[in-house]
């Protein structure tokens, strides 16, 4: 259970930092309403103070310069996730997902999400004429088992792929150190952006 409490505390801390910026507030009471676990607010604020991210005075909190920086990161992360999911679900739902994911997702993933969203419609099928090394932007396979197989072989959005040569019925690609023979049916469902 120690792990859960640790996580709850981390979530509370990040929520506090974000709430201060997003709602331009310093009232602890207002912040408390924003929290998923209001009971952990005291401990969370205590820790934030020890880490030098906020200053506490009476019933209000203020961000220190280091705190502002940390909060900035969280807000960017939140926005990136919200942005990503706005294409899939409505705004409110996207906000809710972002609210939840921002605590668990790490910078690299946020960065990839942003990149993938930016790139998603810019790729062209791997079966096309373009050749060389490119970034996989989309894997669009309906068969869920086949999809899982491709992912487990490393064919996943965000991965680099190099086209090697054509063979009858498909082509040879290189992903990292893995060489694969892929049929046209599959290759046409994989979108790649060649720089």
């Amino acid at each position, binding site marked *: 259970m120690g792990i859960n409490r640790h996580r709850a505390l981390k979530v509370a801390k990040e929520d506090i930092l974000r709430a201060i910026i997003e709602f331009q507030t310093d009232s602890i009471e207002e912040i408390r309403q924003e929290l998923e676990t209001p009971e952990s607010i005291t401990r969370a604020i205590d820790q934030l103070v020890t880490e030098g991210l906020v200053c506490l005075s009476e019933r209000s909190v203020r961000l220190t310069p280091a705190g502002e920086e940390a909060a900035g990161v969280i807000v960017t992360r939140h926005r990136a996730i919200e942005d990503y999911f706005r294409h899939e679900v409505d705004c409110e739902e996207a906000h809710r997902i972002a609210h939840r*994911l921002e605590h668990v997702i790490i910078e690299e993933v946020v960065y990839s999400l942003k990149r993938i969203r930016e790139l998603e419609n810019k790729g062209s099928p791997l079966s096309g004429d373009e050749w060389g090394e490119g970034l996989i932007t989309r*894997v669009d396979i309906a068969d869920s*088992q086949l999809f899982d197989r491709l992912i487990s072989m490393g064919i996943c959005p965000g991965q680099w792929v190099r086209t090697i040569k054509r063979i009858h019925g498909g082509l040879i690609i290189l992903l990292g150190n893995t060489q694969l023979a892929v049929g046209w049916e599959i290759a046409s469902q994989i979108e790649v952006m060649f720089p």
Partner: protein
Amino acid sequence: MTANPGKKTLKVMLVGQPNVGKSCLLNALVGPCVTISNYPGTTVETTQAKREIGETSFIFVDSPGTYSLSDRSEDERATKHALLSNDMDVAVIVLDACSLERGLYFALQVIESGVKTVIAMNFIEDAVEKGITIEYDRLGRLLRVPVVPFNPFTKRGLDDLIDEIRNASRFRSATIDVLYDDHIESVISMLIEEGLDTSLPTRFVALRILEEDKDFLHLVNKTTMIRIKDNIGKDCLLITEDIARMRYGTASFLAAQGTKIIHRETRKKEVIDSLRIDRWLLHRFWGPALTLLFFLALFYTLLVVGGTIQCLLMTVSESLIALILADGGFLTQILIDGLTGVTAGVAMALPYVFLFYIILGLTEDIGLLPRFVVNVQRTLRFFHIPERGFISLMLGLGCTVPAVTSTRIMRQRDQQVRLVFLYAFVPCSSRLGIILGVVAYYGGNGLVLPLFATLGLAALFWLLIMKTLSKDELDPILLELPAYRRPMISNVAHKSWLRMREFVVVVIPLLILGGVIYSFIDQLGGTVVLIGPFAFVTEGLLGLPAETIIPILFGFVQKDLTGAMLVSVLGGDVAAAMTPLQLFTFGVVTSIGIPCIIVVPAMLKEIGWKNTFIILVTTSLFSLVVASTAWRIALLFGFM
């Protein structure tokens, strides 16, 4: 699980993606007992090996390589079932340090299943060379699963691995939970609330259901599923993809967190070399040409080298038997006939089977097989055979029994049955023994080509019939091509010996038994009874001496008896008793069809009695038709 008081037994399963070195690890842990190949999918069945270490007796179970828990063939399914059965104490996930992300993807799936796990990291030296330093402790902390680097050849890390397996078996600690998107998490909760009837972790089962795993779908009824899908609206269409994507994202994250310094540009040297070689070997024209050349060279080597060894063995064994032939009593005669069976069978089969397995071992170890698959896939697909069937067919050149077992890798039952049909035309080494060791040996090497051509034509005819009958869609090509590597002679020799041993252990007793039974019947005058009624087949249909029915029939017991019995019934000098044309017809009729009864159990197991029966009857009749037709055509052209 305790076998005897004070002694603990631990059942440890080695799992991992193809070609990560599970079998290598097993060999390193318990000594040589598993076949290692540079080809994904060598292990079709699980292999077990036992070893006592200190107070614990370990049972290590090797499993066929599995890309992910979403199984796509029977062998992968078997791995999943074994892994998830309560029978296993600990699962060791073997990862390739050079392909960490995809390995971790699979590892996360296994960890989600709640099995007690230890991660064993292979190819660490390669990774270091590539510029990747893995922080095992950090990765282990993130996953909350011990990560142990090992090298199966230097035995580095094996003791640590054993310790960690022991620790892991004692208690299950909390491991990493992959957190999925909110909509997925909410569906997972919904499914869990439905009350899934399972002994496995409900979260894992819920995920398997959402990933449309057929083994778990029955745990929820359809209406519930529809209700849940309605609840989440259009997102449900993407749910399977999102799960895989998030899991892969987590795997990438873990790989990035657990790794220091990545030089993206440095590829493994072997990979670069492989690409250079593949420029020729996967060339659109040269690739298939070189593959064909390889097989021609293979048969030529068998003919020349195998023939030489056979000649040597025959001379030695004949002179040995001549030594005991002093008196001709009833029992001595039976003994002699038994011995003749063995020696002739061994001399005719062993050189070919031995050579073939050595060459097969070399091609596997170097990594040539998957390239051959790429080169022949177009032809195979024309006949509606999935490309992965090629490996099974090639195994058939050794012995049909393991080849039939290996057809399990086919994804569809129809495809599997069709593949088993084809073994009627893929000459196993025993049948190669007849072609090269009997027909060519006594009738001249010039008979080999027409004989193979006849077999080829018969196979073509059959393939075309099957092509028109098959309606199922073929899977798109998806095949991993591992980097070439220098063959390890000890590995090849060991592997050939393992395959040979199976052959020797089954075949030699059958040869003795067949020889003795024949002699017994012959001494009591029984063979004459057999020869008469079948004369219409041998003499009428095939133009063969009536006695040849004995070797043909005994061939069904064990194909290597065919040659041995032929020598017995014709009294040693086959060349004088049969014309080249007769030898040719004899070769055709004995080499088409399912070779012998030792294949039948494997067939029953893989494709059921009905299909087995159909295959046995149709291919046997077909062999008679082809041989008879070939004989008549040859007569028309004036051959004798």
